[in-house]
Protein backbone atom coordinates (compact mmCIF):
# COMPACT_ATOMS: atom_id res chain seq x y z
CA UNK A 1 0.00 0.00 0.00
CA UNK A 2 1.65 3.21 -1.08
CA UNK A 3 1.77 5.94 1.51
CA UNK A 4 2.32 8.57 -1.13
CA UNK A 5 0.16 9.73 -3.99
CA UNK A 6 3.31 10.37 -6.00
CA UNK A 7 3.91 6.63 -6.13
CA UNK A 8 0.76 5.85 -8.08
CA UNK A 9 1.56 3.68 -11.07
CA UNK A 10 0.73 4.58 -14.68
CA UNK A 11 -2.10 2.09 -14.55
CA UNK A 12 -3.53 3.72 -11.45
CA UNK A 13 -3.37 7.13 -13.15
CA UNK A 14 -5.12 5.66 -16.18
CA UNK A 15 -7.91 4.56 -13.90
CA UNK A 16 -8.25 8.07 -12.52
CA UNK A 17 -8.35 9.41 -16.09
CA UNK A 18 -11.00 6.89 -17.02
CA UNK A 19 -13.12 7.80 -14.00
CA UNK A 20 -12.85 11.50 -14.76
CA UNK A 21 -13.70 10.99 -18.44
CA UNK A 22 -16.80 9.05 -17.55
CA UNK A 23 -17.67 11.44 -14.72
CA UNK A 24 -17.30 14.45 -16.98
CA UNK A 25 -19.42 12.72 -19.63
CA UNK A 26 -22.17 12.02 -17.12
CA UNK A 27 -22.01 15.58 -15.81
CA UNK A 28 -22.23 17.10 -19.29
CA UNK A 29 -25.29 15.07 -20.16
CA UNK A 30 -26.95 16.05 -16.90
CA UNK A 31 -26.15 19.74 -17.38
CA UNK A 32 -27.41 19.69 -20.98
CA UNK A 33 -30.68 18.31 -19.73
CA UNK A 34 -30.84 20.93 -17.01
CA UNK A 35 -30.08 23.78 -19.39
CA UNK A 36 -32.14 22.40 -22.25
CA UNK A 37 -29.26 22.97 -24.63
CA UNK A 38 -26.65 20.88 -26.39
CA UNK A 39 -23.46 21.05 -24.37
CA UNK A 40 -20.11 20.18 -25.89
CA UNK A 41 -17.47 18.66 -23.75
CA UNK A 42 -13.74 18.66 -24.23
CA UNK A 43 -11.70 15.75 -22.92
CA UNK A 44 -10.95 16.51 -19.28
CA UNK A 45 -7.36 17.46 -18.53
CA UNK A 46 -5.88 15.89 -15.44
CA UNK A 47 -2.94 17.43 -13.67
CA UNK A 48 -0.96 16.45 -10.63
CA UNK A 49 0.17 19.79 -9.29
CA UNK A 50 2.26 21.15 -6.45
CA UNK A 51 0.15 23.18 -4.03
CA UNK A 52 1.88 26.36 -5.18
CA UNK A 53 0.63 25.73 -8.72
CA UNK A 54 -2.95 24.83 -7.84
CA UNK A 55 -4.36 28.33 -7.60
CA UNK A 56 -2.33 29.46 -10.62
CA UNK A 57 -4.26 26.93 -12.68
CA UNK A 58 -7.51 28.60 -11.76
CA UNK A 59 -6.57 32.16 -12.62
CA UNK A 60 -4.32 32.88 -9.65
CA UNK A 61 -4.64 32.77 -5.89
CA UNK A 62 -6.62 36.04 -5.74
CA UNK A 63 -9.01 35.16 -8.56
CA UNK A 64 -12.53 35.03 -7.14
CA UNK A 65 -14.10 31.62 -7.61
CA UNK A 66 -17.10 29.63 -6.46
CA UNK A 67 -16.24 26.47 -4.58
CA UNK A 68 -18.77 23.75 -3.84
CA UNK A 69 -17.55 21.25 -1.29
CA UNK A 70 -19.00 17.80 -0.62
CA UNK A 71 -18.00 15.22 1.94
CA UNK A 72 -18.00 11.60 0.77
CA UNK A 73 -19.84 8.91 2.68
CA UNK A 74 -20.59 5.17 2.71
CA UNK A 75 -17.85 2.95 1.22
CA UNK A 76 -15.53 5.86 0.48
CA UNK A 77 -14.31 8.60 2.84
CA UNK A 78 -12.96 11.96 1.84
CA UNK A 79 -14.15 15.07 0.09
CA UNK A 80 -14.60 16.53 -3.34
CA UNK A 81 -14.92 20.04 -4.65
CA UNK A 82 -16.16 21.66 -7.82
CA UNK A 83 -14.66 25.07 -8.61
CA UNK A 84 -15.57 27.63 -11.26
CA UNK A 85 -14.25 31.13 -11.66
CA UNK A 86 -16.90 33.80 -11.18
CA UNK A 87 -17.30 34.55 -14.87
CA UNK A 88 -18.10 30.92 -15.62
CA UNK A 89 -20.42 30.71 -12.64
CA UNK A 90 -22.32 33.84 -13.71
CA UNK A 91 -22.66 32.38 -17.24
CA UNK A 92 -24.13 29.16 -15.87
CA UNK A 93 -26.54 31.01 -13.58
CA UNK A 94 -27.67 33.29 -16.41
CA UNK A 95 -28.20 30.32 -18.75
CA UNK A 96 -30.15 28.29 -16.24
CA UNK A 97 -32.34 31.12 -14.97
CA UNK A 98 -32.75 32.74 -18.39
CA UNK A 99 -31.65 36.10 -17.03
CA UNK A 100 -28.99 38.67 -17.89
CA UNK A 101 -25.51 37.58 -16.96
CA UNK A 102 -24.41 39.46 -13.83
CA UNK A 103 -20.92 40.89 -13.34
CA UNK A 104 -18.47 40.25 -10.56
CA UNK A 105 -18.75 38.05 -7.49
CA UNK A 106 -22.27 38.89 -6.33
CA UNK A 107 -24.87 36.17 -6.67
CA UNK A 108 -28.56 36.40 -5.87
CA UNK A 109 -30.24 33.87 -3.55
CA UNK A 110 -31.57 32.11 -6.64
CA UNK A 111 -28.11 32.21 -8.21
CA UNK A 112 -26.50 30.59 -5.18
CA UNK A 113 -29.24 27.99 -5.14
CA UNK A 114 -28.62 27.21 -8.80
CA UNK A 115 -24.90 26.83 -8.15
CA UNK A 116 -25.53 24.40 -5.32
CA UNK A 117 -27.88 22.43 -7.52
CA UNK A 118 -25.26 22.40 -10.27
CA UNK A 119 -22.77 21.17 -7.72
CA UNK A 120 -25.15 18.38 -6.71
CA UNK A 121 -25.54 17.27 -10.31
CA UNK A 122 -21.83 17.27 -10.98
CA UNK A 123 -21.03 15.49 -7.74
CA UNK A 124 -23.65 12.88 -8.47
CA UNK A 125 -22.22 12.39 -11.98
CA UNK A 126 -18.69 11.78 -10.83
CA UNK A 127 -19.72 9.55 -7.97
CA UNK A 128 -21.96 7.42 -10.15
CA UNK A 129 -19.02 7.03 -12.54
CA UNK A 130 -16.87 5.73 -9.70
CA UNK A 131 -19.68 3.56 -8.35
CA UNK A 132 -20.40 1.96 -11.69
CA UNK A 133 -16.75 1.16 -12.29
CA UNK A 134 -15.95 -0.07 -8.80
CA UNK A 135 -19.30 -1.36 -7.51
CA UNK A 136 -18.67 0.61 -4.33
CA UNK A 137 -21.44 2.70 -2.79
CA UNK A 138 -20.55 6.33 -2.48
CA UNK A 139 -22.82 9.15 -1.46
CA UNK A 140 -22.14 12.87 -1.28
CA UNK A 141 -23.12 14.99 1.72
CA UNK A 142 -25.11 18.17 1.16
CA UNK A 143 -23.14 20.81 -0.73
CA UNK A 144 -21.34 23.69 1.00
CA UNK A 145 -20.78 26.79 -1.07
CA UNK A 146 -18.23 29.57 -0.75
CA UNK A 147 -17.36 32.46 -3.05
CA UNK A 148 -13.87 33.75 -2.30
CA UNK A 149 -10.26 33.88 -3.49
CA UNK A 150 -9.09 30.72 -5.29
CA UNK A 151 -6.16 30.24 -2.90
CA UNK A 152 -8.44 30.30 0.12
CA UNK A 153 -11.03 27.94 -1.34
CA UNK A 154 -8.41 25.51 -2.66
CA UNK A 155 -6.65 25.46 0.71
CA UNK A 156 -9.36 23.07 1.94
CA UNK A 157 -8.77 20.16 -0.48
CA UNK A 158 -5.05 21.05 -0.64
CA UNK A 159 -4.73 20.58 3.10
CA UNK A 160 -6.53 17.25 2.82
CA UNK A 161 -4.09 16.21 0.08
CA UNK A 162 -1.28 17.57 2.23
CA UNK A 163 -1.76 14.76 4.71
CA UNK A 164 -0.74 12.20 2.08
CA UNK A 165 1.09 14.09 -0.60
CA UNK A 166 2.89 17.24 -1.66
CA UNK A 167 0.66 17.46 -4.72
CA UNK A 168 -3.03 17.58 -5.55
CA UNK A 169 -5.00 16.05 -8.38
CA UNK A 170 -6.89 18.61 -10.44
CA UNK A 171 -9.33 17.67 -13.19
CA UNK A 172 -10.28 20.44 -15.58
CA UNK A 173 -13.49 20.11 -17.58
CA UNK A 174 -14.42 22.58 -20.24
CA UNK A 175 -18.01 22.54 -21.35
CA UNK A 176 -20.51 24.84 -22.95
CA UNK A 177 -22.43 25.43 -26.11
CA UNK A 178 -20.71 27.01 -29.10
CA UNK A 179 -19.18 30.32 -28.07
CA UNK A 180 -19.93 30.17 -24.34
CA UNK A 181 -17.34 27.98 -22.78
CA UNK A 182 -17.43 27.35 -19.09
CA UNK A 183 -14.45 25.97 -17.22
CA UNK A 184 -15.04 23.77 -14.23
CA UNK A 185 -12.36 22.29 -12.04
CA UNK A 186 -12.92 19.16 -10.13
CA UNK A 187 -10.86 18.00 -7.19
CA UNK A 188 -11.52 14.59 -5.77
CA UNK A 189 -9.79 13.85 -2.47
CA UNK A 190 -10.54 10.38 -1.22
CA UNK A 191 -8.53 9.30 1.79
CA UNK A 192 -5.60 7.06 0.96
CA UNK A 193 -7.62 4.11 2.25
CA UNK A 194 -10.39 5.07 -0.13
CA UNK A 195 -7.99 5.29 -3.10
CA UNK A 196 -6.81 1.81 -2.16
CA UNK A 197 -10.40 0.54 -2.05
CA UNK A 198 -11.07 1.98 -5.48
CA UNK A 199 -7.96 0.43 -7.00
CA UNK A 200 -8.52 -2.91 -5.27
CA UNK A 201 -12.06 -3.17 -6.53
CA UNK A 202 -10.70 -2.60 -10.02
CA UNK A 203 -8.16 -5.38 -9.57
CA UNK A 204 -5.24 -3.02 -9.30
CA UNK A 205 -4.13 -3.54 -5.72
CA UNK A 206 -0.46 -4.04 -4.92
Amino acid at each position, binding site marked *: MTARLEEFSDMEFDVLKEISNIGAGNATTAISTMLGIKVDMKVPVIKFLEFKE*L*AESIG*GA*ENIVTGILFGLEMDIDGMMMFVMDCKSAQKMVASILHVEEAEGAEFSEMGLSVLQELGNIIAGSYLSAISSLTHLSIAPTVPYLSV*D*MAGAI*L*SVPAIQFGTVSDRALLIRSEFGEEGTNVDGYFILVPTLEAFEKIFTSLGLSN
Partner: protein
Amino acid sequence: MGNMVKVGMADMNICKAPDAITTLGLGSCIGVVLYDARTKICGMVHVMLPDSTAIKMNDNPAKFADTGIRDLLAMLAKEGVAKASLKAKMAGGAQMFAVKSDNEMLRVGQRNAEAVRKVLASYGIKLLAEDCGANYGRTIEFYPETQELYIKSIGKELKII
Protein backbone atom coordinates in the same frame (compact mmCIF):
# COMPACT_ATOMS: atom_id res chain seq x y z
CA MET B 1 9.02 51.16 -2.54
CA GLY B 2 10.99 48.00 -3.24
CA ASN B 3 9.93 44.68 -4.64
CA MET B 4 7.10 42.47 -3.45
CA VAL B 5 8.53 39.03 -2.62
CA LYS B 6 6.02 36.23 -3.12
CA VAL B 7 5.38 33.24 -0.88
CA GLY B 8 3.21 30.39 -2.21
CA MET B 9 1.30 27.65 -0.43
CA ALA B 10 3.67 25.50 1.68
CA ASP B 11 6.47 27.91 0.91
CA MET B 12 8.70 30.42 2.71
CA ASN B 13 10.90 33.38 1.93
CA ILE B 14 12.68 36.34 3.49
CA CYS B 15 13.16 39.95 2.57
CA LYS B 16 14.66 43.21 3.78
CA ALA B 17 13.29 46.75 3.66
CA PRO B 18 12.49 48.51 1.32
CA ASP B 19 11.13 45.23 -0.11
CA ALA B 20 7.91 43.72 1.17
CA ILE B 21 6.64 40.14 1.30
CA THR B 22 3.24 38.67 0.52
CA THR B 23 1.17 35.52 0.34
CA LEU B 24 -2.16 35.43 -1.49
CA GLY B 25 -5.44 33.70 -0.74
CA LEU B 26 -4.91 32.28 2.75
CA GLY B 27 -7.87 30.06 3.62
CA SER B 28 -7.38 27.56 6.41
CA CYS B 29 -3.64 28.00 6.03
CA ILE B 30 -1.70 30.42 8.23
CA GLY B 31 0.75 33.07 7.05
CA VAL B 32 3.37 33.55 9.78
CA VAL B 33 5.70 36.56 9.75
CA LEU B 34 8.87 36.76 11.81
CA TYR B 35 10.59 40.13 11.80
CA ASP B 36 13.39 42.15 13.33
CA ALA B 37 12.46 45.83 13.67
CA ARG B 38 16.10 46.92 13.99
CA THR B 39 17.66 45.31 10.90
CA LYS B 40 14.31 45.45 9.02
CA ILE B 41 14.76 41.85 7.87
CA CYS B 42 11.76 39.55 7.94
CA GLY B 43 10.56 36.15 6.83
CA MET B 44 7.18 34.65 5.97
CA VAL B 45 6.02 31.03 5.85
CA HIS B 46 2.63 29.80 4.53
CA VAL B 47 1.79 26.69 6.57
CA MET B 48 -0.99 24.19 5.88
CA LEU B 49 -0.91 21.73 8.75
CA PRO B 50 -0.10 21.85 12.44
CA ASP B 51 2.35 19.04 13.04
CA SER B 52 4.93 17.27 10.88
CA THR B 53 5.26 14.41 13.34
CA ALA B 54 1.60 13.47 12.92
CA ILE B 55 1.94 12.71 9.24
CA LYS B 56 4.06 10.35 7.15
CA MET B 57 4.18 12.60 4.11
CA ASN B 58 6.39 15.30 5.60
CA ASP B 59 9.13 15.97 3.06
CA ASN B 60 8.26 19.63 2.69
CA PRO B 61 9.03 21.41 5.97
CA ALA B 62 7.22 24.61 4.96
CA LYS B 63 3.95 22.70 4.98
CA PHE B 64 3.86 22.39 8.78
CA ALA B 65 3.81 24.89 11.60
CA ASP B 66 6.60 23.18 13.56
CA THR B 67 9.13 22.55 10.78
CA GLY B 68 8.08 25.66 8.83
CA ILE B 69 8.87 28.05 11.65
CA ARG B 70 12.03 26.09 12.51
CA ASP B 71 13.34 26.39 8.94
CA LEU B 72 12.34 30.03 8.63
CA LEU B 73 14.34 30.76 11.79
CA ALA B 74 17.32 28.99 10.19
CA MET B 75 16.92 31.09 7.04
CA LEU B 76 16.86 34.27 9.12
CA ALA B 77 19.84 33.13 11.20
CA LYS B 78 21.85 32.85 7.96
CA GLU B 79 21.16 36.56 7.42
CA GLY B 80 22.54 37.24 10.87
CA VAL B 81 19.16 37.75 12.55
CA ALA B 82 19.12 36.36 16.06
CA LYS B 83 16.01 34.66 17.40
CA ALA B 84 16.03 36.96 20.41
CA SER B 85 15.40 40.01 18.24
CA LEU B 86 12.39 38.54 16.43
CA LYS B 87 8.71 39.29 16.87
CA ALA B 88 5.81 37.59 15.10
CA LYS B 89 2.49 38.35 13.44
CA MET B 90 0.09 35.93 11.79
CA ALA B 91 -3.14 35.70 9.81
CA GLY B 92 -5.40 33.08 8.24
CA GLY B 93 -6.82 29.93 9.77
CA ALA B 94 -10.33 30.51 8.46
CA GLN B 95 -13.03 27.89 8.22
CA MET B 96 -13.96 28.39 4.60
CA PHE B 97 -17.01 26.13 4.52
CA ALA B 98 -19.74 26.03 7.13
CA VAL B 99 -19.58 22.30 7.61
CA LYS B 100 -20.84 21.11 10.95
CA SER B 101 -18.84 18.07 11.79
CA ASP B 102 -16.64 16.56 14.45
CA ASN B 103 -14.13 15.81 11.71
CA GLU B 104 -10.78 17.20 12.84
CA MET B 105 -9.77 18.03 9.28
CA LEU B 106 -12.56 20.57 9.05
CA ARG B 107 -11.22 22.39 12.10
CA VAL B 108 -7.76 22.60 10.57
CA GLY B 109 -7.75 26.41 10.42
CA GLN B 110 -8.19 26.65 14.14
CA ARG B 111 -5.70 23.83 14.77
CA ASN B 112 -3.13 25.59 12.61
CA ALA B 113 -3.49 28.80 14.62
CA GLU B 114 -3.13 26.89 17.90
CA ALA B 115 -0.05 25.08 16.59
CA VAL B 116 1.64 28.29 15.45
CA ARG B 117 1.04 29.96 18.83
CA LYS B 118 2.52 26.94 20.57
CA VAL B 119 5.60 26.77 18.34
CA LEU B 120 6.29 30.50 18.70
CA ALA B 121 5.95 30.25 22.47
CA SER B 122 8.40 27.33 22.53
CA TYR B 123 10.99 29.59 20.81
CA GLY B 124 10.19 32.48 23.13
CA ILE B 125 9.07 34.63 20.20
CA LYS B 126 6.36 37.11 21.06
CA LEU B 127 3.26 37.12 18.83
CA LEU B 128 2.39 40.80 18.66
CA ALA B 129 -0.68 40.67 16.43
CA GLU B 130 -2.94 38.18 14.69
CA ASP B 131 -6.02 38.08 12.49
CA CYS B 132 -7.27 34.51 12.42
CA GLY B 133 -10.50 32.57 12.13
CA ALA B 134 -13.79 33.67 10.58
CA ASN B 135 -14.87 32.25 7.23
CA TYR B 136 -13.19 34.29 4.53
CA GLY B 137 -9.92 34.31 2.62
CA ARG B 138 -7.08 36.74 3.29
CA THR B 139 -4.19 38.12 1.26
CA ILE B 140 -1.43 39.49 3.45
CA GLU B 141 1.48 41.85 2.85
CA PHE B 142 4.19 42.58 5.39
CA TYR B 143 6.34 45.73 5.19
CA PRO B 144 9.52 45.34 7.25
CA GLU B 145 10.13 49.10 6.96
CA THR B 146 7.11 49.84 9.17
CA GLN B 147 6.51 46.33 10.59
CA GLU B 148 2.90 46.59 9.42
CA LEU B 149 0.89 43.60 8.24
CA TYR B 150 -1.75 44.50 5.66
CA ILE B 151 -4.70 42.12 5.41
CA LYS B 152 -7.02 42.22 2.38
CA SER B 153 -10.24 40.25 2.11
CA ILE B 154 -13.06 40.36 -0.41
CA GLY B 155 -15.82 42.72 0.54
CA LYS B 156 -14.01 43.89 3.66
CA GLU B 157 -12.07 47.01 4.64
CA LEU B 158 -8.29 46.78 4.53
CA LYS B 159 -6.98 45.77 7.95
CA ILE B 160 -3.55 46.78 9.21
CA ILE B 161 -2.11 45.11 12.29
